[in-house]
C-alpha cells in the first residue's frame, strides 16, 4: 500500500496565485486532515473531514478551502496565495477518530514569494 500520498513535494507560488495541494490515501480511511507545520509552532490543523461530503474547519482555516468528494481524496486549495502561507503542509488520515492513530503523507513544502 502507498499509504498517504501528497503532491507536489515542493512548490513556489507568487503572491495572489492559486493552487491545489493533492492528497490521496488508499487505506479506506474515513478521517482525513490537513496540517501546516511552521518552525517552533508544531502542527496546526487547517481542515479535516470525517467522510466523503463532510468537511470542517480546524484551528487555522482562513485562506484555504477543501473538498471531499471521495473517500480517497482530500485536496486543499489556496485561492490567493500570501507569504503567510509559506509552510510545510501535511495531509493525514485515520480509520476512525477514536482509538486510532493518524498516518501522514510526506509533506508539501510551499513558498509564496
Amino acid at each position, binding site marked *: 500500500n502507498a499509504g498517504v500520498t501528497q503532491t507536489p513535494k515542493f512548490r513556489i507560488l507568487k503572491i495572489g496565485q492559486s493552487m491545489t495541494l493533492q492528497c490521496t490515501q488508499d487505506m479506506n480511511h474515513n478521517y482525513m486532515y490537513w496540517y501546516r507545520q511552521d518552525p*517552533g509552532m508544531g*502542527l496546526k*490543523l487547517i481542515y479535516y473531514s470525517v467522510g466523503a461530503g463532510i468537511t470542517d474547519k480546524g484551528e487555522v482555516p482562513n485562506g484555504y478551502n477543501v473538498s471531499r468528494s471521495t473517500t480517497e481524496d482530500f485536496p486543499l486549495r489556496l485561492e490567493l496565495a500570501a507569504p503567510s502561507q509559506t509552510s510545510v503542509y501535511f495531509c493525514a488520515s485515520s480509520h476512525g477518530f*477514536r482509538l486510532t492513530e493518524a498516518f501522514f503523507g510526506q509533506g508539501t513544502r510551499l513558498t509564496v514569494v
Partner: protein
Amino acid sequence: AQSVSQHNHHVILSEAASLELGCNYSYGGTVNLFWYVQYPGQHLQLLLKYFSGDPLVKGIKGFEAEFIKSKFSFNLRKPSVQWSDTAEYFCAVNRYNNNDMRFGAGTRLTVKP
C-alpha cells in the same frame, strides 16, 4: 482554549544519556494521547499511543511514555538515547467528543555521538 504544551523546544544529549520530554494538555474528560517522531526530511510517524488501561505505554525503539491523569501529562522517556534518535518529537491529543487532533509545538532532540 485547547492546548498541548511541550516544555522543551530543543534538547541536546550525548549518546547513552537518559531522555524525558514533557507534554501537558489542558483538556478535561477522556483523551487519547500520542507521541509522533519526525526524522530529518521525513514525515511524522507514530512512536506510541495511549487509549486506556496501563498508564505506562511502550512504543517502538525503546521509547515509553507515562500518562498521569491528575497532572494532565504524558511524558516521553528513553533510558539510553542513540545518535539515530535525533529527530523532532511531537505530542498529540484528541478528545473523545471532538473530531480533531491537536499537536504540541514539538521538541527537537539532538544526540551527539
